[in-house]
């Protein structure tokens, strides 16, 4: 076992109730409300249409899978 692997060090512990929750990670850039509004404003068919225009080389099945995930209210994770 390599016990001197410095790249594999434990991350700093915050052992208190003090927690800013940020940890250097970005907050999701779009709010839940805005995402719901975006979904309402654009149908699944429009989404697929735009994706095909934007990425003509992309496989239609992949585009449809993305559309399924978006329009199934985030329940598409168990793939």
């Amino acid at each position, binding site marked *: *076992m*390599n*016990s*001197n*692997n*410095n790249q*594999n*060090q*434990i*991350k*700093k*512990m*915050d*052992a*208190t*109730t*003090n*927690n*800013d*929750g*940020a*940890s*250097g*990670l*970005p*907050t*999701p*850039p*779009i*709010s*839940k409300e*805005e*995402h719901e509004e*975006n*979904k309402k*404003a*654009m149908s699944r068919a*429009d*989404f697929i249409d*735009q*994706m095909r*225009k*934007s*990425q003509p080389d*992309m496989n239609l099945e*992949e585009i449809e*899978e*993305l559309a399924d*995930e*978006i329009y199934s209210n*985030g329940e598409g*994770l*168990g*793939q």
Partner: protein
Amino acid sequence: MNISPNYLADSAEAKLVEIIPASEKIQKRFNDKISPDMKEAISTICSQVFNKCQYPYALIGSNCYIPHTEHSEKIPDDLDVVFGIQDRDNVYVELQKMAADNQIKDLSMEELQKFGKEKNGCFKIHCLIKTENGYKEMEAFAQNMNSEVMDNENKINDTKLNGIINLGAEKQTIEVVLVNGAKVNIGSEKTAEELYLKNTANEFALYNLNGWDHKGSLNPKALQRIFNLINLDGQKFEDSIDLMIKNITRYKPVTDEARVAQESLQHLWAKFKTLEVNHRNGEKKEGLVNHLIKVNGIKFDTTDDRENKILSTEKAVDIITQKTKEDMVLMSTNFEEYKKLLENKGSAPAELITNIDNQILSLSTISKEYKKYLSLVNKDDKNDFCVYAAIPQLRDHFILPILTKLNRDRMKLEKNKK
């Protein structure tokens, strides 16, 4: 067993804390697994500061976890201590003396806040301890003890349990290891478990699967806590995730954060269990931990299957947390740049569409990669849960919403062009 001549062994606080010599196994692991530099920092700070305390103190965090787990390649790189608020002034005076002697630097003290809100009466002291090869970071938490948390009827007042580990408020065992000749208190395995459970509650509370209401981002530490918890000596790996979820609300006071964390983890665990064991062609899935280890060319010097599995999971958690973090930052940065372009009235629709198309390409590539990761997750391999947990947040809160927004904007821009 007394450490310090100042120690008030008959105090109510001390009576709740049992101090015992560490077993040979724990002492040996401490000797073998903690780096010489860290040992130097620990022995210096404990002999000059904490062993003079009147009330109990203990090392927590990685220096407590590592001696209580059989297999880990992690090396603690910082030092966390909890001690009594009654000792705060004396501890600070001793540290000031050390600073004057250049044995430590960057000494500071701040009052802590609960989830960024009101101050909670606990203090964090921070400094860097000089060693032969550089400096080791220390965070020491002055926390309430028995006398502050008992109400008039001599019952524990939950609202004052403001540290994650409150020595002297609840029954605790501390183990004493010898480090370069100095006696050093470390938390027991139970302390390590309690710390990780409570930290997981804090961090997962920020990870709300149902949306963006909380601060929003999955904290990579949370995944490491899950792994550390199931890797402690006393855990049976097969039941460890169910037990961890159950135990998150075991400690008093049960906070809202603990309940949210329990719910989020339960949701994620339930989702994980619905995954298929085989691919559509009937071939058994490789498992995401195995895949990440293989593609990164990592090999461990062991013939023990269990050790190999634990070390692989530990490393895979590091890989996936680093990768998800990088991808979240990349997606956010690109999207912010696009928003600036959008706000710039001079931007032509064609220019904006080109930017959108480039971003969609980048998002689709990231999406494809994580889709592949998801397809490799094997629900029969519980190690995979630790890495799987990183993915839903990335898809649900980053990839899919940005993709939706960009396509909606693209549709509008196309109409404007006509």
